[in-house]
């Protein structure tokens, strides 16, 4: 009880501190058309003595200025419950509403503050491409010029790789095609038998073709195990033609990532590493042959970022054929994150050196594949001394360079730029390839490429602008950056050329098309990683306390969380509320077993769900293992484990996360840093008792009265996210009284209670919308106008919290935003 009472004190002290924080429940604005003067009068009578004439505060009484993002309705609630300090009943109902409206319009809201000259309006800042944007832009620039490989009809695309099974004859491995089939995972043990009737037991060969989906950007490790012969080609150029499958014939210009073709009488393991951009498919080909060995088997595994070694499986393999993607794999210094999100706000010599290295490697790729990318063949032998043929070729390559620059700069070039590109590199070189190489480096180092958008870039075709005066090319560039972190594709360019990015309807049509792209999915994965604070978490636990919670289980939980989120975001309802309330957990066979062994799931539920996992144990499917306990991401074991100590839960970590990122409440940094030392507490205390004791100082409590109840509500989930009734022998008390942003005290005791709080809180949606906005645009919402955030939050609610619609709104808003005139000439 001692702890409970200290809570009430804390809640009270928070009110005394008068912290204007957040509010609850949307209340209809009942004030109607009451004159603003009434609000002003009441404010002067009842509020100004503490808060000052313009809300600026009064020294020694209440120092802090009052301003923020709350709506009038939220302010009304807060005033009704808490103001004036000590006698909140003195300003309620219509009076509270009048005061709220008055301060909102006079000095509280961002719009009011700019109107009254209290704040300077923010502007969209000139920025360079972020590192992911740079890498994607280079990849898509080259992809723009890469002819698409012939594609099977969409209906024929299946998960897995298409395998062609051949009878071999000595050196001729693909001697006779016996059959084809789609193989969903690359794990085969044929023993001493054959995969197909009709294949000779002694010697056969298999070729698998298709593509591999990389979900994350980073280093991918691949591994082949076989006692036979195998090669893996990843990110090959499927358009350049592949070799015959013989022991003694050369592969045409293709370099295997892994070459384990030659046996040595035993099973071999070969590994390789490759850097890939997330959200993309890469062409994949695996060749295998058996020749006289007693057995035949093949295992192709990978270790993706955040993953452990696992079989290449149907969730990542597809029979779809795709073109090669050039990936800049030079290292870059990290982007600026001083505002909490990555943005291209600074240029350092290191960054610029990396950009030039990337440009050189991209130029090398272009020159190596010049006939394919430019469509300009090399001169034939007969033409070698033909000056006219040489000049025609140079002209075509100049055209190519100008087209590359146009796509790279995301706008039509000026006459001057075109002339410079056609002349400067070509004047210095007799070899046109050398000129193309230099031109490529120039283009990729140019500010027009490396900056997100050059303000006021002079575009020669003045007609090419929409009603608001924005050229279609600017709109297309912003859409591609916002949704893909990349440059416009061919479809956007055809709209630019037709000048039809002129209406919101047309733009929206593109946006809905664009968000179905893997690059958008990848970008959204990055957003959730940030919102849920998943970066650089060490989930390792005390192995004696949490047996079985190993690297593989941790990786599976991460994927489970990602799959759950993607299932919600990319479903038709795309409902944000599902993220906080769903009871589903996505499980594969390893996680089912883990949950079963730890008593979190009943055997019957697990058995029921695991029918298909016999065939594909790595495949995930949604399960509801427990009812009335789980609440979406809030109780996902990955998150609960990340927000815990290696040997115990951490209500403070969990509480801070919920406070800031789920409920959107501001917290100050702790006034004193206090380390939590588990061993310093008597062993018979619960975690809750320890935390309450640790944070009992008044200086702690102003925040911990908020943090602790939220953390305590999750105490029935242990340090690895499993349900528990007791902590050791001691019962767990999850109930607390929690004071909402607008001063109401409510009783909470579970994750589902937290979810309810979040769904009723505009601040909760505000933090979600604001972070998504920042992640997509790399700018703050306020840079687009003081009311942008409030308007987006309002429409989010009207859209039934539809996440995709929110993305569309943000993309359209950013794409069509017109900066108020900056002073462009200070000379």
């Amino acid at each position, binding site marked *: 009880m001692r702890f409970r009472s200290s809570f009430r004190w804390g809640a009270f002290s928070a009110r005394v501190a008068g912290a204007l924080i957040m509010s609850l429940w949307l209340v209809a604005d009942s004030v109607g058309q009451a004159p603003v003067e009434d609000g002003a009068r009441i404010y002067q009578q009842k509020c100004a003595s503490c808060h000052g004439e313009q809300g600026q505060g009064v020294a020694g009484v209440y120092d802090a200025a009052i301003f923020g993002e709350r709506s009038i309705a939220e302010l009304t609630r807060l005033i009704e419950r808490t103001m004036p300090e000590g006698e909140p009943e003195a300003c309620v109902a219509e009076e509270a509403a009048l005061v709220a409206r008055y301060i909102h319009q006079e000095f509280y809201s961002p719009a009011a503050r700019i109107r009254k000259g209290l704040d300077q309006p923010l502007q969209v800042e000139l920025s360079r491409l972020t590192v992911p944007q740079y890498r994607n832009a280079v990849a898509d620039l080259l992809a723009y010029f890469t002819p698409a490989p012939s594609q099977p009809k969409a209906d024929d695309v299946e998960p897995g790789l298409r395998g062609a099974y051949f009878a071999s004859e000595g050196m001729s491995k693909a001697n006779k095609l016996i059959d084809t089939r789609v193989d969903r995972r690359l794990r085969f043990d044929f023993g001493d038998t054959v995969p197909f009737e009709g294949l000779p037991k002694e010697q056969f060969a298999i070729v698998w073709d298709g593509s591999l989906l990389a979900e994350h950007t980073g280093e991918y490790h691949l591994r082949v195990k076989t006692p036979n012969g195998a090669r893996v080609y990843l990110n090959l150029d499927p358009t350049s033609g592949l070799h015959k499958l013989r022991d003694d014939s050369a592969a045409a210009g293709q370099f295997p990532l892994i070459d384990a073709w030659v046996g040595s009488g035993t099973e071999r393991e070969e590994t390789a590493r490759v850097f890939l951009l997330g959200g993309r498919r890469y062409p994949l080909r695996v060749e295998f042959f058996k020749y*006289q060995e007693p057995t035949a088997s093949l295992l192709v595994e990978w270790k993706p970022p955040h993953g452990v070694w696992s079989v290449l499986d149907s969730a990542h393999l597809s029979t779809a054929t795709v073109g090669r993607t050039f990936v800049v794999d030079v290292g870059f210094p990290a982007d600026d994150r001083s505002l909490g999100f990555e943005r291209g706000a600074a240029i350092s010599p290191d960054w610029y050196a990396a950009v030039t290295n990337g440009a050189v490697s991209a130029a090398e790729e272009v020159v190596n594949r010049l006939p394919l990318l430019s469509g300009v063949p090399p001169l034939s032998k007969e033409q070698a001394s033909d000056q006219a043929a040489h000049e025609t070729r140079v002209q075509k390559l100049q055209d190519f360079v100008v087209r590359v620059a146009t796509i790279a700069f995301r706008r039509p070039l000026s006459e001057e730029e075109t002339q410079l590109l056609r002349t400067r590199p070509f004047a210095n070189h007799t070899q046109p390839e050398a000129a193309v190489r*230099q031109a490529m*480096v120039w283009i990729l180092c140019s*500010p027009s490429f490396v900056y997100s958008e050059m303000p006021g870039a002079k575009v020669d075709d003045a007609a090419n602008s929409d009603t608001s005066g924005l050229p279609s090319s600017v709109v297309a560039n912003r859409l591609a950056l916002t949704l893909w972190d990349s440059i416009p594709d061919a479809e956007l360019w055809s709209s630019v050329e037709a000048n039809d990015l002129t209406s919101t309807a047309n733009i929206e049509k593109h946006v809905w098309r664009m968000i179905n792209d893997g690059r958008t999915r990848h970008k959204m994965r990055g957003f959730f990683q940030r919102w849920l604070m998943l970066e650089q978490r060490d989930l390792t636990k005390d192995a004696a306390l949490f047996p079985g919670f190993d690297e593989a289980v941790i990786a599976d939980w991460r994927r489970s969380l990602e799959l759950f989120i993607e299932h919600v975001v990319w479903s038709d309802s795309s409902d944000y509320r599902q993220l906080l309330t769903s009871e589903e957990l996505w499980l594969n066979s390893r996680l089912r077993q883990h949950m079963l062994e730890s008593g979190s799931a009943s055997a019957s539920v697990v058995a029921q769900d695991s029918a298909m996992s016999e065939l594909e144990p790595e495949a995930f499917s949604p399960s509801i293992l427990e009812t009335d306990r789980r609440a979406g991401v809030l109780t996902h074991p990955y998150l609960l484990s990340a927000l815990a100590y290696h040997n115990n839960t951490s209500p403070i970590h969990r509480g801070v996360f919920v406070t800031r990122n789920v409920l959107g409440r501001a917290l100050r940094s702790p006034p004193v840093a206090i380390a939590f030392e588990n061993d310093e507490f008597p062993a018979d205390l619960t975690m809750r008792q320890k935390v309450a004791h640790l944070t009992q100082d008044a200086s702690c409590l102003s925040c911990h009265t908020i943090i602790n109840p939220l953390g305590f509500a999750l105490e029935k989930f242990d340090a690895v996210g499993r349900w528990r009734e007791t902590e050791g022998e001691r019962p767990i008390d999850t109930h607390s009284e929690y004071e909402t942003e607008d001063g109401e005290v409510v009783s909470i005791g579970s994750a589902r209670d937290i979810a309810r709080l979040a769904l009723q809180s505009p601040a909760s949606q505000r933090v979600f919308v604001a972070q998504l906005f920042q992640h997509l645009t790399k700018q703050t919402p306020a840079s687009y106008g003081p009311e942008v955030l409030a308007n987006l939050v309002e429409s989010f609610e009207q859209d039934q919290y539809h996440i995709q619609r929110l993305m569309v709104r943000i993309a359209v808003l950013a794409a069509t935003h017109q900066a108020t005139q*900056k002073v462009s000439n200070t000379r």
Partner: protein
Amino acid sequence: MTQRHRRQFLRDLGLSAAALPFLAGLPSIGLGGVGGSNRRQRFIVFFSPNGTLPDEFWPKAYGAEIPLQLSAMLSPLQPFAERMLILKGVHNQILGDGDNHMRGMSCLLTATELSPGNIQGGGETPAGWSSGPSIDQHVKNFWQSQGETNTRFGSLEFGVAVPNRADPWTRMCYAGANRPVAPVDDPKLMFNKLYGGAQQRQLVGSVLDMVKDDLRRAEQRLSREDRRLLDEHLHSVRQLEQDIAAANSQAELVHPEPEIDPTIELINDNTPQISRMQIDLMVNALANDMSRVASIQYMRSVGEARMRWLGVEEGHHSLSHEPDNNEAAYEKLKRINTWFAGELAYLAERLASTPEPGGDGTLLDHTQIIWVNELGKGNSHTLSDIPFLLLGGGAGFKTNRALDFGGVPHNRLWLALAQAFGETGLQTFGSVKYCDNGPLNLA
């Protein structure tokens, strides 16, 4: 390619002749201070495939005191006859899995058996990679382990028209058991490996002025706040310019890098040009002491190169199968081997015309070349009487003669080389059972 063209290519790479003294080399280039008793030694393996024509290759007379008489087929090497040593009666006796081409190739420099494997040759049992390291890699490891003989690369493996695949017919160098070393058969890749840093700096440096112009144009359109980023950008560009200048002046090459056509296609008909580029790159790398071990592999065992530049339309390997009495084929094989001898002579000539940096004589005086082949004779597939031809003064062997050892394992030849290169305690190399009686006496 004419001289003028080559210079143009050089300029296209951004490497103008005026800039040569500033081109970056690497820290391993401390060419002045080699004095003392340890003279610098180098080792080059020169490989051509599909056997030789014994009657045209072997000299008529053998013996320590008989000056070497070269046959017509080897006539391009005549200027170097006094610096040559031809060894007859040295056999590749390695048995086990694999056909003679495979063992001929992958046991030639390794002198040990192939691992069992899955590659079926023309008859006999299938096999895999060699089960041990090759002599060039062995020497490299020894020299790299000694402070004085350590170089940036240790060894360089060149290829000419080697097909892009890895199997026992295409690999003669091995870092160890089942660890083949791939030859680099693209002069452009080799150039990048040797001089890539400088080349890249030149390329980047060539666009920085244009980028600065771009930035100045952009600046005029920007507000004062936005110029901060542009200033940072300009500062970074200038920093890069300074870095490039500093890197370029840091290390200078004693020998400017050779001229490489950056656009040459790796096709059969360009083989003669590619061969010369690779040799130029090799000699240059040795002169700059980037490496002291090098190999150059022409085609591969069972290679079917069509040497149209010699007026030969048939594939080399098919020709080598023709019986001795097929006069047309015999004459063509003679032309082919004369061409290889000519390439070897070009290598020797380049070495002989390069002064030994900081030392006496020429590079050739300090370099041991050995010309090898995976077979003794093409149409018999014999691994006996491998045509071993030593050239140069690197190992200190007595030259201007031919010796006939009458049938000894070639392990003993590699032992002799290893000992001559300073590993005096080495008692066996490759398969131990072929090492009786120790190194061949070549002094």
